[in-house]
């Protein structure tokens, strides 16, 4: 990876380090084991932890587990080649050999790509349910384990009203739909966590990630903001099929990495925490900001072919009050930084 790109990431991590140093003392001199460790969330956690090691002497070791570690070595050699990073090739659907000295575990393995979910629904469900079962089983045998975080999804809430979504709102999923494959598997995984917590007293916390935008996110995903950025980079008009009124929120990944680690270390076992920005913004406004910041000459085309006034925005009260977490990178800054990143990739 070009040094300019790694510099951008390091700048973001250093910016959040003062908070991280205070909030993440528990991971000092510890070893963390991360399944799905080379994905979007895992990579950002690795960036933040290595920054804490380099700048603040955290001496935290990371074991990044993934099926394909070779591509990560090519994609992020500045992380893969470090002594505080260990890469392990493994499939979470098979038995895992977790080192005895692991004290924290993050189970992040599962693709959030909704195209894969509907094209390979059985594999998707097996990976999430079977994989989570394997990880929880292996974790329950670790003598020195302090906490395990299992990544669920904000999608477990299903369609909600326009209010911000808090952790105690029940889900509204239709289990009998191909689009429920991923969120229903995540719901099952959450309940499995509850079962291990209850039966084995496994110290497990759940994180429910919402939407993110920033470096390392692939623009091939068919999500609205990714499409907007991709079209803007190509000077194509941004098309919105509906009325542009759906409200979403976007968290910058340096905040995301800190939130995940804080929930891991300080979240209460047995509970679930939202990970996402509470600042809602309409798709129309996001599209216009993207075009503005990206300097794209093309238009935002609102097709008005549906009346969608839905909202999908997390309530951050629980994380803010119980874990002292907040969003430090507002949407405008997130978009500008994303622009810098994607332009540098070109």
């Amino acid at each position: 990876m070009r040094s300019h790109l790694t510099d951008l990431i390091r700048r973001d991590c250093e910016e959040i380090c003062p908070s991280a140093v205070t909030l993440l003392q528990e991971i000092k001199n510890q070893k963390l084991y991360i399944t799905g460790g080379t994905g979007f969330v895992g990579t950002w956690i690795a960036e933040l932890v290595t920054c804490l090691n380099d700048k603040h002497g955290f001496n935290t070791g990371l074991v990044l587990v993934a099926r394909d570690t070779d591509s990560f070595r090519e994609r992020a050699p500045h992380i893969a080649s470090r002594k505080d990073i260990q890469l392990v090739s493994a499939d979470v659907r098979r038995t895992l050999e977790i080192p005895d000295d692991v004290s924290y575990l993050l189970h992040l393995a599962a693709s959030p790509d909704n195209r894969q979910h509907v094209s390979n629904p059985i594999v998707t469900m097996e990976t999430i349910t079977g994989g989570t079962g394997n990880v929880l089983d292996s974790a329950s045998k670790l003598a020195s384990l302090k906490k395990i975080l299992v990544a669920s999804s904000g999608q477990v809430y299903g369609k909600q009203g326009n209010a911000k979504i808090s952790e105690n709102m029940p889900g509204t999923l239709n289990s009998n739909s191909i689009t429920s494959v991923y969120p229903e598997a995540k719901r099952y995984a959450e309940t499995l966590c509850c079962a291990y917590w209850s039966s084995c007293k496994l110290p497990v916390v759940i994180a429910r990630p919402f939407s993110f935008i920033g470096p390392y996110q692939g623009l091939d995903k068919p999500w609205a903001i990714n499409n907007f950025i991709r079209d803007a980079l190509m000077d194509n008009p941004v098309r919105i099929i509906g009325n542009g009124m759906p409200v979403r929120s976007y968290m910058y990944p340096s905040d995301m990495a800190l939130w995940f680690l804080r929930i891991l270390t300080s979240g209460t076992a047995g509970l679930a925490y939202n990970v996402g920005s509470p600042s809602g913004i309409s798709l129309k406004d996001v599209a216009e900001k993207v075009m503005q910041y990206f300097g794209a000459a093309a238009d935002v085309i609102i097709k008005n072919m549906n009346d969608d006034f839905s909202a999908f925005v997390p309530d951050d009260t629980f994380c803010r009050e119980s874990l002292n977490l907040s969003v430090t990178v507002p949407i405008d800054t997130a978009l500008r930084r994303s622009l810098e990143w994607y332009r540098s990739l070109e």
Partner: protein
Amino acid sequence: MKKVIISDATLRDGSHAISHQLTKAQITKYAQAADKAGLPIVEVGHGNGLGASSLQVGLSLLDDREMLETARASLTRSKLGIHIIPGFATINNDLKFAFDYGVDVVRVASHCTEADITERHISYTREQGREAYGVLMMSHMASREVLLDEGLKMQSYGAEALIIMDSAGAYLPTDVQDRISHLVANLNIPVGFHAHNNLGMGIANSITAVEAGAQIIDGASRGFGAGAGNAQLEVLVAVFEKLGFSTGIDLYKMLDAADIVEKEIMQSTPCVTSVSLVSGLSGVFSGFAKHVSLAAKEYGVDPRDIFFELGRRKVVGGQEDKIVEVALELREKTEARTK
């Protein structure tokens, strides 16, 4: 006033009716007329779509590049659309160059139960900043629940609309109402309908589709298309305006374009022939009509028997080789009875 987007399949579905022998002059003249009329989308290509020209389904007179280049040069307002079926069309060999020739809308089609083969083509189209529609062909062969399941897949891949095709012209208005209303109620993307006229229901079914919530309707000038033809485009424009739906199309100029098709492109006006009616009744792809007629003549069997047997075997587009197989079997049975 509610809007309906009309997608013009004349220079694509019409290719079936003339064994894919469209000339450059025909494409130029019709595309210019359609553009003047304000057609939102003008599809061009082999009847089975990009990359389909072959001995199996028929060789085109012009190759894909020539057709796209010719049409692009004639369209200023209308979007240039193509129909592609993964398997016929590959991303590297076909879709990439189509974008070089200025294609705006890619209608990625699969059999009604096989949407998962469209993932890469839809994704690639979106990655290039072009519009991608998902198309489910032979939709009468699936229940509304199956169509929704497949439509949700296409929506997840990034399709910006879902079109269901009545490829065999087998629907009655109640079938259309049932399926379209279910899709409209459960998808986040606009729903469209593509009629064939085998049972004389092309216009009626298109009206039913719009009344059930469809926002995109396919048609062809003078009904120039496979089998008994498509929903007649100029009639659609007139009827929708009379019903209070806006199409944005100039009726007089649309009629001029339709006249061009009648006088300079089509060899015969599509109508509900005995063969096409049987195609609709048996639920067999309208594009099989010419192949069935040829096989019937060559092997001395009744084309209606071929259609009903193909329908019984649930044969779909791409299985044209089954036509000869069925014709031979029917001849053998007839000969055995005679002996």
